[in-house]
């Protein structure tokens, strides 16, 4: 057990070094000041007001697939396959 508990991380050895346990019947009463911002930087830069894209998942998927097809097609036309195998195959199936 000792080995499990030992060697706890220390970022700053001074932290808590002067803290003594308080009377358990007496809870801590430290209350921080309440923050009331009156400055203008509570508003983020205009491009950092985030919304969710309006396109729904299904529509997005359909477009993505269409684009994908288009990309493949383009790839096919730009780098035609020498044997023209697919074309022949398609031609044969179109009968």
């Amino acid at each position, binding site marked *: 057990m000792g080995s499990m*508990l030992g060697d706890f*991380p220390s970022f700053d050895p001074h932290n808590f*070094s*002067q*803290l003594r346990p308080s009377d358990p019947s007496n809870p801590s009463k430290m209350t*921080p000041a309440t923050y009331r911002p009156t400055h203008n930087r509570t508003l983020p830069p205009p491009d950092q007001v*985030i919304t*969710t894209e309006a396109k729904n998942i299904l529509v997005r998927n359909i477009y993505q697939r269409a684009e994908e097809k288009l990309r493949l097609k383009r790839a096919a036309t730009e780098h035609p396959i020498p044997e023209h195998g697919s074309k022949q195959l398609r031609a044969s199936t179109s009968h």
Partner: protein
Amino acid sequence: MSIWNYVVTAHKPTNVTHSCVGNFTAPQELNLIVAKCTRIEIHLLTPQGLQPMLDVPIYGRIATLELFRPHGEAQDFLFIATERYKFCVLQWDAETSELITRAMGDVSDRIGRPTDNGQIGIIDPDCRLIGLHLYDGLFKVIPFDNKGQLKEAFNIRLEELQVLDIKFLYGCSKPTIVVLYQDNKDARHVKTYEVALKDKDFVEGPWTQNNLDNGADLLIPVPPPLCGVLIIGEETIVYCSANAFKAIPIRPSITKAYGRVDADGSRYLLGDHAGLLHLLVITHEKEKVTGLKIELLGETSIASTISYLDNAVVYIGSSYGDSQLIKLNLQPDAKGSYVEVLERYVNLGPIVDFCVVDLERQGQGQVVTCSGAYKDGSLRIVRNGIGINEQASVELQGIKGMWSLRSSTDDPFDTFLVVSFISETRILAMNLEDELEETEIEGFCSQAQTLFCHDAVYNQLVQVTSSSVRLVSSTTREMRYEWHAPQGYSLNVATANATQVLLATGGGHLVYLEIGDGTLTEVKHEQLEYEISCLDINPIGDNPISSQLAAVGMWTDISVRIFSLPDLNLITKESLGGEIIPRSVLLCAFEGISYLLCALGDGHLLNFLLNMSTGELTDRKKVSLGTQPITLRTFSSKNTTHVFAASDRPTVIYSSNKKLLYSNVNLKEVSHMCPFNSAAFPDSLAIAKEGELTIGTIDDIQKLHIRSIPLGEHARRICHQEQSRTFAICSLKNQSNAEESEMHFIRLLDDQTFDFISTYPLDTFEYGCSILSCSFSDDTNVITVLGLRMFYPKKMSQPRILVFIVEDGKLQLIVEKETKGAVYSLNAFNGKLLAAINQKIQLYKWMLRDDGTRELQSECGHHGHILALFVQTRGDFIVLHEEGAIEERARDYNANWMSAVEILDDDIYLGVIASLPHEQYVFLEKLQTNLRKVIKGVGGLNHEQWRSFNNEKKTVDAKNFLDGDLIESFLDLNRIRMDEISKAMGVSVEELCKRVEELTRLH
């Protein structure tokens, strides 16, 4: 309740839901950030402990809180998401000490079913995206660009519908989530997905793990070098990664929170439902995980969040009990615990029921709450205002003034208490038996009323009567010198400190004397144009025994003036306005700020900031403390100076965060007060009230006083019975090892000691839903009635109503009546019993049988409600709050003049709803609108949207309710902002301050 309402929290939320640790306020500073419902608190770790820095109100209920470090930043940013689907990213600007908003947004979707298991908000450890799970079947992604800016969010379809937890995995080249979910056969599994940001879709992840512990509920991602994830179940803990699987059995427990100890992820603290704290260790050889080990460390409050801070100190945030700061010791204590509690932070929540009682019979209501849950259940006695704990008291009529004196200058304690009457002065002193008895100071004039007394230098005492000023040795008690008022003049008002005396005679003469060793020297004399009504020379400057300023209140022109000492030059003249003369002035300093307080004859108090070098008075503010003349005196408690304002509504004036606060003292009327710090009664006050002299100590100076009565079990309902001076509670206790894990009781407690004096165990599977103390017509007994419900309806007989009387301190069951449903609420109604039973309201008559016994006989009922949960009656009216139709569960008790108490929906606020006249409502609504323009929402969140009413079906603007928290924050603004609002409102700052301060005195 009127339709114009003012709602204000009397006590900020105390229930800790989230916490995190990081370098937020500076690269070298370590901060603990705690979320308490609608607020976050920023603390700094210091050698002395946790130092609170800022309490930040958030316009929304916090759902997730995370610190993260974007690429290239030297300190952490804070990500907050609210339950109503707003989020913001905050950064601390150390130069201005302000929170600035880096990003914000709305992440709600128009369609989608909100998750049942709470909202999840996580940030990729490599800061590539923020992931949100807010609706079933959807995972929302907010991507970061390479400069750390957020981009438009998008949704990804998530196949798993019953998600229990989602975390990001560490050390993955593509952002990868691990999802813990339950399938439609109630089996639990984990699955991993890579987030393909470009395709906006998931790609199957590196591994899955099926058929886990049925209670698996929590994922802990393990950082590099080990990586992988820990899956915490109720009976096992599993470590899982692409290439390793290790499991250990654990004692059955439900883990509620975890905290990582080491940066390399090898040790974790786990907190369970019973408040037990365990240490989980991943044993490894270099980067290869070899196994898991778990050890019990000890007991804490039931944790909702655990944050390892530094040097073995850990923060335990709790929703069910008090939050704690604990230390993990290397050696166990006598009970075998490695946990040492260093600090405790009060948590009142969740408040499930409360009653208002006047235990001290001072006309001041106290709220007794059923707080906390499970083993951390407690009763909390919440009292507004400051209590005086009476130590001794004697009957003494006609007290005109009181002063305490020491027997030598360097004696730390007071010995004498001088009590002045209309034509005599009596001296009380502590004798050897520590009793107060009458004594004499031979050098004092005892045949006249004393105007003022004070300790003076050289072991002397000063007494001022209408004819003379006497200087008396405090050791021999003999007179050393007497200064006589000039012929034909009598002294009307006097004040003194250790070295100076200031006197006022008729005709507006002001006389200044200095105290020497056995002499009084008249240094200066000045005639003013009007009569003088009050004086003060309390030394608040650098010299603790002498003052350079004198405050003088005037008749006729109704002014307060500041004179310099010793030359009595007029420095400042401030006209008070109105026709009421100042009755008491006081120079005082709080938290290093000097003030002049000036109390008027009609119970108003003015305060000014006092410039000690120029004597200038600024920032005038006016509050109403009572209706009668006020006498101001300073006193010390715990080495801090406060002011006691004696009047028909005695008040303590103190300062917190450099703001003056006013707190009621729980006494009806006090004519005079003086501090009396004797050896037997240290830090005490002598108080003259209603023909009585009381010595008492004062509570800690704060607005609300909370006393905690730990029960070790969960109290759910409470009622008070005045006649037997008891409380009755319905409570439940969790048995850790028994077959039937819950036991339900009715317990009777003494209302002074809070000891259990009688217990009535309920049947198995039966629990108390409602409890009431009432009396029936034609029966003089006061009766405790209990409504029961069954939580296992199949196994047992009918729910029932039990009727008890309290006899010889015992609960005696006299009648029981079966009902056709759970009895959710009980009310006394015109000498009968009104019960809300499921969807029905039933009225019972208390019948006398022929044999003298009693029975409850059903008289009439009313059907057609959805589920009757709360019923309130007033006179002949019954108000019913139904589940389903209820907007706000407000229970209005007229506790004490004007104040009323309520529970808001989640039972975690303690607040006040006050009804307002329409004119005031309109005024305050205008103020609220103006404040919204000046006080900005942290993170850019909108106040109006937050306060709007919202349920599953609709969102509408808040109507007829004003947010007192916002309105009262007016007092926290600086002068420039106050002026801005004053201009927009067309009302003076002084008037605005006065009206808002009056509202703060509601609670």
